[in-house]
């Protein structure tokens, strides 16, 4: 009896611990009770889970000072992000958006995210407390940003308004760059002034956070609290890793508790955007036109192929061609190798990975140490990236220009005046 009870206790005890660890390691994690209620699809568990998922996908909106958006917006956003990441269950998209239902489905979605990738590690990295000054890193956002309130365009939008807004955006970008330059100047000053203050010999000067701590002990307390909080989450994450097997076994039972999906569930295509009624006819027309165009092109291609064959049929097959062919193949091989090498090079260790602390060094030949990078290398890498992006931008702009010219040419009587160039 005792042995069995212990075993049962062991299994039963591990699950609440695992869930508790998970909840402690998530930012704004819901209580373990919510998890339990969600298994039984209780409606009161739904809001907390909607909010958690929202928080996971939009860390910027998770700032405590900002007002959280309406439940409908949250729900729509969560659904669209999950869809774009490939969440396989259609039951999620069918949930109502008023936060009232779907706790079990949301629990499944959360576990799916946890199982797919290093979710916890990513979240912890996002909220990491930094003591040093960091190289600002721009990461392409993994998920689309929060959709702003959708403005229905009533009737045609005046192009001038769009230009006005574009101009405002451009001004803000410029001001952002100016502020960043200001930040750099000031950082440089702080690093210069606090030379020799740091106990760590390899760093030699203080960062902004450290200087603030010295100036304002109250701030130091807050920093300490933040670090303790982060520590607690890290410990919870470690415990979670230890116990997660139990959680996955339990999730199997949750999945089992779901009603089976409809027969079309598995084969249902990815969610299609709803098409407003009157436009359906237009789309059919367009589809037919495209079909006809494709058939036409195929015929043209066939005739061309036949003529080419007739002209060049004999060529390329004689013995004298084998050398040329071999030479061509070698040239292509070399190009491929060169491309691969440049690809490897651009992913060399000078690529900043993870947060790096900015340290001002006086020696010209100073070795950055095992983990360090010299700013010059990072700058070089960033410059090559910049030039790649610029070439791509120019290509896209050229494409746009050609497209516009084509469209303008199609309208008789339209005169094309380009903006003045210097």
């Amino acid at each position: 009896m005792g042995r069995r009870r212990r075993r049962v206790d062991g299994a039963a005890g591990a699950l609440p611990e695992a869930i508790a660890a998970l909840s402690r390691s998530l930012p704004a994690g819901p209580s373990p009770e919510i998890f339990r209620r969600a298994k039984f699809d209780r409606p009161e568990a739904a809001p907390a889970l909607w909010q958690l998922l929202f928080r996971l996908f939009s860390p910027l909106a998770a700032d405590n000072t900002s007002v959280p958006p309406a439940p409908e917006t949250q729900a729509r956003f969560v659904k669209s992000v999950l869809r774009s990441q490939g969440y396989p269950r259609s039951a999620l998209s069918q949930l109502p958006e008023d936060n009232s239902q779907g706790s079990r489905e949301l629990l499944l979605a959360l576990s799916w995210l946890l199982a797919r990738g290093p979710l916890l590690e990513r979240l912890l990295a996002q909220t990491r407390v930094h003591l040093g000054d960091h190289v600002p890193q721009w990461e392409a956002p993994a998920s689309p940003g929060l959709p702003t309130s959708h403005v229905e365009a009533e009737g045609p939008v005046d192009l001038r308004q769009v230009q006005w807004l574009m101009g405002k955006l451009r001004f803000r970008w410029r001001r952002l760059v100016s502020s960043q330059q200001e930040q750099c100047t000031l950082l440089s000053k702080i690093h210069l002034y606090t030379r020799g203050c740091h106990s760590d010999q390899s760093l030699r000067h203080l960062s902004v956070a450290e200087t603030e701590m010295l100036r304002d002990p109250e701030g130091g307390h807050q920093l300490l609290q933040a670090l303790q909080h982060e520590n607690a989450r890290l410990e919870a994450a470690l415990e979670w890793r230890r116990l997660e097997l139990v959680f996955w076994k339990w999730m199997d039972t949750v999945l089992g508790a779901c009603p089976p999906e409809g027969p079309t569930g598995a084969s249902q295509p990815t969610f299609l955007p709803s098409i407003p009624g009157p436009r359906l006819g237009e789309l059919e027309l367009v589809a037919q036109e495209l079909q006809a165009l494709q058939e036409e092109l195929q015929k043209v291609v066939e005739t061309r192929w036949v003529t080419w064959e007739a002209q060049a049929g004999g060529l390329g097959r004689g013995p004298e061609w084998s050398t040329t062919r071999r030479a061509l193949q070698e040239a292509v091989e070399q190009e491929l190798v060169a491309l691969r090498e440049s690809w490897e090079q651009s992913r060399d260790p000078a690529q900043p990975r993870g947060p790096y602390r900015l340290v001002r060094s006086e020696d010209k030949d100073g070795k950055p140490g095992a983990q360090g990078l010299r700013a010059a290398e990072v700058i070089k890498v960033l410059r090559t990236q910049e030039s790649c992006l610029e070439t791509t931008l120019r290509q896209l702009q050229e494409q746009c220009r050609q497209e516009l010219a084509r469209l303008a040419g199609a309208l008789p009587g339209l005169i094309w005046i380009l903006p003045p160039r210097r």
Partner: protein
Amino acid sequence: MSVVTVQLGQCGNQIGFEVFDALFRDSHCSQGLCSRRENEAYQASCQERFFREEGNGVPIARAVLVDMEPKVINQTLSKAAQSRRWKYDQHASFYQKQGSGNNWAYGYSVHGPRHEESIMNVIRKEVEKCDSLSGFFIIMSMAGGTGSGLGAFITQNLQDQYSNSLKMNQIIWPYGTGEVIVQNYNSSLTLSHLYRSSDALLVHENDAVHKICAKLMNIKHVSFSDINQVVAHQLGSVFQPTYSAEGSSHYRRNPLGDLMENLVPHPEFKMLGVRNIPQMSENSLAYSTFTWAGLLKHLRQMLISNAKMEEGIDWQVRPPISGLPPLGKMSLNKELHFNTSIANLVILRGKDVQSADIEGFKDPALYTSWLHPAHAFSVWKTQRAFNRYEKSAALVSNSQFPVKPLDVIVGKAWSMFASKAYIHQYTKFGIEEEDFLDSFTLLEQVVASYSNL
């Protein structure tokens, strides 16, 4: 954030001096009608933007003085130094020994490239002394020779080298009956070049300011010094510190940026006009009191009727009833009646500023159809009084005011061009007829865009 002022030519340098003087005197004025702490914050903010400290000396203006001859620059430097309250940096100036004979093309094609490196060097040194650069404020005349041609060239260079910094050109519109016979050519060329490389063109018309001096300030013989002081007063009322938000106690850090973002984001509409109320001689100041309601009512009517001062306003002009086209809508043959705005910025300074009611400026009828007043209108406030005016209001507006004057200038320039008068002065130095045509085209486009609001 700091603003570096570039003073170009005789006009630019003389006005620049008055501007810095007005800013300094106001920020150190004891009749600010606010607490000492408030006053100190105001002073510090103004200081950060326009001056810098060096050791224990007087504050140094963040300015670069450029001219082709030494006379005006030396006068300006010494005038500032003599005041013993602030001064210019002796080294932040560039001048040559000889003038350029009022030739725009010479200024643009010869002086510019020849002295490009030295001038940009001087500017760069001044920029390096800023912790954070918000942008450049370039003061120049439009119709002169050197100042204008060189100014256009330098603005272009600033665009290339400091593409992320903002650039505002303060341009002085010449008298309609000016002395320089080719002033319309110069104006056209200057405006078209600046339109391409500057972010905002703040216009002051000599004729309008002259009237203000004569009628409002009761000056019998209006000199350039009087005109410059009025201009400086108007600019000061725009650029002195204001609170960053409703109810905030911090001063706005980047007024140039905020102003531009609100008023000139559209690349076709870059011209701004300033109106200030009240404007009077110092003697009358002590005997006058104002209410915000009265001031704002006048200011609004000044905007609508395109009046430049608070006397002689045409009160008949009314905003159009929504749905109907505005009264007297655009045909340039008729008198322009109603001045449609694209965007407006009202700046209020002084006592009880919180109680000022600016609802009148939020009327959608004042604005063009494609911009809602919520986006088109902004207001800045501070209770600190400006230049001893107990209450004062300034209006910076992007509206149809440049249509008529611009049209006049382009028309006159075109007539001269059609008979090829004086063109050789320009072609001699590399400004071809095609450049003239490009300029006319651009300006006609600007006139058309503004007319079609």
